[in-house]
């Protein structure tokens, strides 16, 4: 067991040290202001935009700022004196040429490693049978998808992902209130877990419990967000393009109205759970909800981590679904590679050489003989078809608790 964990960590450190997505520098630059005593990062960035070298808004929720900033404060003695100027460096060339970049990346990604390994141990607890737990443990530690998603893309979403898994462990023990509180806390990092509250409400035994289950996470999230509530927070994080992308309009129904496909799917699921389902299995509903989001929205690659631990659980509980889930995962990772965004593919390797800037993106290569958006649509449609059938199978059978 120890050898396996050691090997799993080594593999992760390799990807952490050598693959670089610029987001890690951007949000760490923003979080570095916590060391300087800045509490409200949203207004600070908007007010000081002119004088800052990196002008992006802070798009995450407050707990992410405090988690990243707090860790950075604790780790700053290891980072050395040049670290803050590296964070503030706006030149894309000197940033990757910095001889300390390997150290910076490993140290900055260390919390993800801890949370990642922690998730592996939590997954073990999810199963009554020891062998199943160990299978899930290995699936989590040794699958290429999560290593790539967490360490190549410096995926900050691992904080809410861990918390949603904790919430499901509590649900397994019928601790609905505590689970809803954890969901509220997770939403303090990133808003998506809040989408699950309506389903938690459905699970409530009586009106009082239903009310509490709905109110507790809302209150926790409100308490987290309230001190920061400002036009800057609303624009940067609350209604930012990334937060609201799930609800992008789908097709027109005339007179300016549109049908929002992912919301329609969520609504169908909710009403099905309410009016048709006899015994609600929240795990299945969470998986279906996430599959619906990925099927019907232009998702960010980082979002795929949201479903990863649950897909591992599903693969162990229902081995017949592992191959379809594997294929869906491959398709989901392929789609963003064809976005017109260098950092989805080639730029991840800029640490090795900035000469790679000369290499055209998969989008540009494909564009010469085929419309890349068509290919994205084809891959997305196949992925959505597979996801819908997996969802259908989960709704039909209620074995996954």
């Amino acid at each position, binding site marked *: 067991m120890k050898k*396996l964990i050691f*090997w799993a960590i080594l*593999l992760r450190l*390799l*990807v952490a040290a*050598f*693959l670089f997505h610029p987001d890690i520098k951007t949000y760490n630059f923003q979080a570095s202001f916590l060391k300087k005593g800045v509490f409200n990062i949203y207004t600070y960035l908007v007010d000081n935009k002119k004088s800052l070298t990196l002008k992006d808004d802070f798009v995450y929720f407050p707990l992410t700022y405090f988690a990243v900033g707090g860790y950075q404060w604790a780790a700053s003695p290891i980072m050395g004196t040049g670290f803050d100027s590296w964070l503030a460096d706006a030149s894309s*060339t000197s940033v990757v*040429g910095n*001889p300390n*970049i*390997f150290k910076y990346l490993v140290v900055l990604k260390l919390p993800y490693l801890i949370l990642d390994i922690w998730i592996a141990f939590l997954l073990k607890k999810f199963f009554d049978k020891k062998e199943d737990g160990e*299978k899930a443990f*290995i*699936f989590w530690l*040794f*699958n*290429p998808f999560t*290593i*790539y998603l967490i360490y*190549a893309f410096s995926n900050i979403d691992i904080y809410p992902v861990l918390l949603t898994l904790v919430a499901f462990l509590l649900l397994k023990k019928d601790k609905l209130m505590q689970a809803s509180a954890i969901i509220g806390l997770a939403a303090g990092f990133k808003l998506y877990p809040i989408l699950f509250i309506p389903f938690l409400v459905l699970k409530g035994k009586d009106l009082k419990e239903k009310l509490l289950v709905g109110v507790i996470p809302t209150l926790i999230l409100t308490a987290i967000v309230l001190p920061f509530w400002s036009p800057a927070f609303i624009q940067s994080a609350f209604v930012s393009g990334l937060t609201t992308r799930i609800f992008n309009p789908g097709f027109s129904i005339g007179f300016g109205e549109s049908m929002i496909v992912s919301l329609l799917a969520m609504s169908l699921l909710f009403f099905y759970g309410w009016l048709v389902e006899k015994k609600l299995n929240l795990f299945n509903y969470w998986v279906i909800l996430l599959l619906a989001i990925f099927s019907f929205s232009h998702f960010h690659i980082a979002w795929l981590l949201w479903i990863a631990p649950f897909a591992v659980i599903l693969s162990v509980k229902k081995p017949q679904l592992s191959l379809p889930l594997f294929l869906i995962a491959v398709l989901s990772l392929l789609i963003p590679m064809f976005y017109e965004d260098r950092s989805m593919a*080639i730029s991840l*390797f800029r*640490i*090795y*050489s*900035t*000469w*790679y800037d*000369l*290499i055209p993106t998969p989008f540009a290569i494909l564009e010469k003989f085929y419309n890349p958006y068509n290919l994205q649509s084809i891959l997305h449609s196949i992925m959505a078809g597979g996801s819908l059938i997996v969802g259908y199978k989960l709704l039909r059978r209620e074995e996954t608790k």
Partner: protein
Amino acid sequence: MKKMIWLTSLFVIFLVFIVPGMLASTLDIIPYGDQPGYNSNQRLAVYGERTVSQKFISTEKNLAAIGTSIRNPNLKNKKEIILSLYDEDKNLVRTLTLNGQNFQDGDFVKFVFPEISDSEGKIYTFTISSPLAGPEETVEVFYFGGATENILEYTYDEKSYPGGLPIVTFYKPNSKLEVIKKVYSNWLSRLL
């Protein structure tokens, strides 16, 4: 389970150690250094008879391209943009024509031409012009003052000044293996 561990380990090893080499093998030309910094407010307009010339030293053999940042305000220029390359004796050695509609405002534009095998250490001058463009279809190049190791002087409105356009020169490598070796050795030298 063992298969899963093997496959994942191979995936990571492939990603970290093999992919960089594969990417390097796709490079047909490699740059000499980084683009020099410049002030985005310092620009020279190019249209009609207004041209800009730049004298530079080719640091390597097989000079194969010259790149610089060009503004095409409001993408108005859809005319030919010509780069003419002269050797030290003012012989025209290469001519490249691009169209303004092919690049966005502020793009780093590369003029790629058949390589000049004996270019190492030689002085060249190139001229950028857009003879068919009127004053409304101007393109702008950036410039900086003070000569560098290889960017010597520029000429505009028949006057010459030290420094010039923030250019990057590109060279055709001798072999793919040479590029792969350079990429890995650069990476390792920073790592160790």
